[in-house]
C-alpha cells in the first residue's frame, strides 16, 4: 500500500481523538461516580433506573407517612393512658364511695373529687395536638365534645376517623372519635350512658348519699374501662402494624437503592482501571503523533 503524508497524519489524528474521547468518558465517569449520566449512555438501564427511582420515591414517602401515623398513634395512646387512669379512679371511687358515705364532709370531698375528674374528662376529649382536635375524627378543627346544651353531651366531630395510608393497600385508621371513646349517644352497644353523664350521676348519687345507686354505677364504669382498654389495644396493634410496615419498607427501600446504585453508579475500581488503560493509549498515540515524520528521506539528502 502506498502511504502518503496526509494519510499518516490523518490516521494519527483520528486515533489521538479516539483515545482522547475514551479517556474523557472514563474521566467523567470516575469524577461523577455515575455510569448513567445521560439516557443515551444506556437507554434500557435509564428506563429501569427511572422506575426504580419512582419506587424509591414512594417508599420514602410511605416511610414518612408511617412516621406521622406513629406520631398520631403515640399521642393518642398517651391521652388514652390518662383517660384509663381517670376511669379507673372513678370506678375505685364508686367502689370505695359506697362504703364511705355516712359523713357529709366525706361525701363533699368525694363529690369534689368526682367533679374535678368530670372536668378533666371533658378537657381530655377536646385535647388539641399540633392544632388538631385528635378525638374529633376528620373534623379536626372542631371541638368534639359539646357541653353547651348541658348533659348528656353531644358529639360535634366527624364520625369518620382520620386515616393514613401506610401502603398502597392499607389505609390505617389513626384517630379515635370521642363519641366512641365516651360512648356519646350510645354509639357503643350495651345500652350504657356516656362517660361524662355517668360521672355526673356518680357525683349526684354520692351527694344524695344513695349507696345502692352508687354501687350500681360500678358496672357502668367497668363497661367504660373495658371500652377504653379495647380501644387502647387497637392502637397498640396499629403501632405494631406500623413498625412492621416500616421495617418491611426499609428493607424494600434498601433493595431498591442497591439495585439503583448497581444500575447507575460507576464501579470505581473498574472505571479507574479503564481510565489508566485509556490514559496509556492516549500517551502512546500522543507519542506517535509527536514522532510523526521524524525520519524522512530529507534527513539523508545533502
Amino acid at each position: 500500500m502506498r502511504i502518503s503524508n496526509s494519510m499518516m497524519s490523518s490516521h494519527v489524528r483520528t486515533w489521538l481523538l479516539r483515545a482522547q474521547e475514551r479517556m474523557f468518558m472514563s474521566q467523567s465517569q470516575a469524577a461523577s461516580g455515575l455510569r448513567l449520566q445521560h439516557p443515551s449512555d444506556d437507554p434500557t438501564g435509564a428506563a429501569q433506573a427511572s422506575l426504580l427511582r419512582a419506587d424509591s420515591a414512594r417508599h420514602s414517602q410511605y416511610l414518612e407517612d408511617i412516621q406521622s401515623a406513629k406520631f398520631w398513634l403515640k399521642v393518642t395512646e398517651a391521652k388514652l393512658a390518662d383517660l384509663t387512669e381517670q376511669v379507673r379512679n372513678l370506678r375505685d371511687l364508686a367502689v370505695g364511695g359506697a362504703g364511705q358515705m355516712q359523713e357529709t364532709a366525706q361525701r363533699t370531698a368525694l363529690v369534689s373529687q368526682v367533679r374535678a375528674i368530670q372536668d378533666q374528662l371533658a378537657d381530655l376529649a377536646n385535647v388539641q395536638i399540633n392544632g388538631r382536635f385528635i378525638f374529633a375524627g376528620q373534623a379536626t378543627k372542631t371541638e368534639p365534645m359539646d357541653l353547651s346544651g348541658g348533659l348528656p353531651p353531644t358529639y360535634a366531630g366527624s364520625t369518620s376517623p382520620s386515616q393514613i395510608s401506610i401502603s398502597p393497600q392499607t389505609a390505617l385508621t389513626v384517630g379515635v372519635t370521642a363519641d366512641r371513646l365516651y360512648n356519646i349517644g350510645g354509639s357503643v352497644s350495651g345500652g350504657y350512658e356516656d362517660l361524662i353523664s355517668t360521672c355526673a350521676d356518680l357525683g349526684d348519687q354520692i351527694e344524695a348519699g344513695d349507696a345502692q345507686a352508687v354501687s350500681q354505677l360500678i358496672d357502668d364504669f367497668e363497661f367504660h374501662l373495658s371500652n377504653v382498654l379495647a380501644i387502647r389495644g387497637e392502637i397498640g396493634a396499629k403501632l405494631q402494624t406500623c413498625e412492621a410496615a416500616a421495617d418491611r419498607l426499609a428493607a424494600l427501600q434498601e433493595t431498591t437503592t442497591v439495585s439503583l446504585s448497581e444500575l447507575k453508579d460507576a464501579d470505581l475500581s473498574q472505571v479507574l482501571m479503564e481510565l489508566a488503560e485509556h490514559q496509556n493509549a492516549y500517551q502512546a498515540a500522543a507519542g506517535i503523533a509527536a514522532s510523526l515524520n521524524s525520519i524522512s528521506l530529507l534527513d539523508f539528502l545533502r
Partner: protein
Amino acid sequence: MSIIPGINTVLSSLLAHQQALDITGQNIANVDTPGYHRQEAVLGARASRLDNGSGSILGGVDVLDIRRADTSYIDLQIRFAASKFGQFSAASQQLAAVEGILNPSGTEDLGAILNQFWNSWQALAASPDQTAPRLTVQQAASELASWLNDRHSQLLALQSSNYEAIETSVAEINRLAAEVAELNTRIARSGPTASPPGELVDQRQQALERLAELGGVVALKPEAEGAIITLNGHPLVQGGHSFAVEVEQAPDGTVLLTWADTGREINPEGGELAGLISIRDERIPEYLQALDNLASQMINAVNAEHQLGVGLNGATGSFFVGAGAADIRLADPIANDPNAIAAGSAGLPGDGSIAAAINALRDQPIISGQTTSEFAAAFTARIGEDLNTARQEQAIADAIQQQMVAQQQSIGGVSLDEEMTRMMEYQRAYSAAARVLTTMDQMVGELLEIIG
C-alpha cells in the same frame, strides 16, 4: 554529419525535466492541501529516426500529459459515505440537543418531577388539615406544569433553529451547485487535449463531496462529458447549468423543499438535509405529542378526582387548567390559595380521601395504558435509544468514510519521500543532459579549432 539535431534532443530533455521538476514542486507545495491529488508528468520519447541526409539520429523527450492520480471510483464511495455521515451526524446533534432539553441531569428529569408531584399528594392525604403539605402540593404541581411548559417551548425553539440550519444547508447547496456548474464550464473550456487541469478537478471533487454530505447529492460520473449530478433523482447540475433549490414551511409547518423552476417537491434521501428534516418533522413532533399526551391525561385524571372534592375554603372545581403541555397550569383558585386544594370530599379538614385518590392515580394506567412512571421510563428510554441509534449509524458511516479517505489518500495523496526520489531522478537527468550539451559544445569547439 550535423550536430544541431543532437543539441535539439538534449534541449528537449532539459525542458521536459525542468517541467517535471515544476510538477514535483507543485506536489510538494500541496502536500497538506485538502482534496489535492498528486500530479505526474507523463514523459514520452520523440520518435527517433535516422536522418539520411545528415546521418544523425533525431529524437528527444516531451511532457505528453500532466496526469492527476485517478480516484474516481473511491470518490464515488466517499460521496455515499459522506451522505450517510451527514445525515446521521445532523440527526445525532439534534437528538443530543433533545436529550439535553429533556434530561439535563439525573435529578431534573420527568420521572423525578412526577415522583415529587405524587408524593406531595400522598403527604397531603396523611395531613390534610395542615398548610405545609398543601403548599408542597401547590409547588410540586406548578413545577410539573412549568417543566412541561418549558420543555414544550424549548422543543419548539429547537425546531425553529433546526429550520434555520436547513435554510443554511440549502443556501450552501445552491452555492456549491453553481460552483460545480462553473467548474464544469472551465474544465470543458480547457479543451479536449490531454487531462483537464487537476486543480479544477480537485475543486469539483471537493464540492461534490460537500454536496453529498449536505444533501445526499448523487454524482455518478462527474468527469464524463455533460454528466448529470442529481438530487433526489432530479438534475442539480447539468453541464454548465445548475438548478436552484428553494426551502419554505408548508402550511402544516413541515419543511418543504422544491425546485425553483418547476416547483416540484424534493425529498432528500441522505445528507444533513435528510437528517435535519427527519428530526424536525418526525421526531420532535412525536416528542411534543408525547408531552402533550402526558399533560392532557394528567389534567383529565387529576381534575376528575379533584372535582369530586371540596377545598378547606369551600372551593370546588378543577386543579389543572389547560389542554396540553404548552398551557398546562394550576387553576387560578388553587394557585392563589392552597386551601382551595380539595384534599377531602366533605369539606372536613381531616379528610384526605381525595388526596389519597389522586395519589392512587400513580398506580393507574392513565397515560395511554401506562402509569406515569412507566411513561416517564419509556420516554427516557426512547430519547436515549433514538440518540444512541443515530450515534451508532454516524460512527459506522464515519468508519466507512475514514476507510475510503485512507484509500483515496493512498492513491492520490502526496508522499514527500516519493517526490524527493523523483526530484533526484529529474535532477540527475537534467545534469546528464547538460553534460551532453557541454560535450557537444566541446566537440563543436574542437571542430572549429581544426578549421581555424
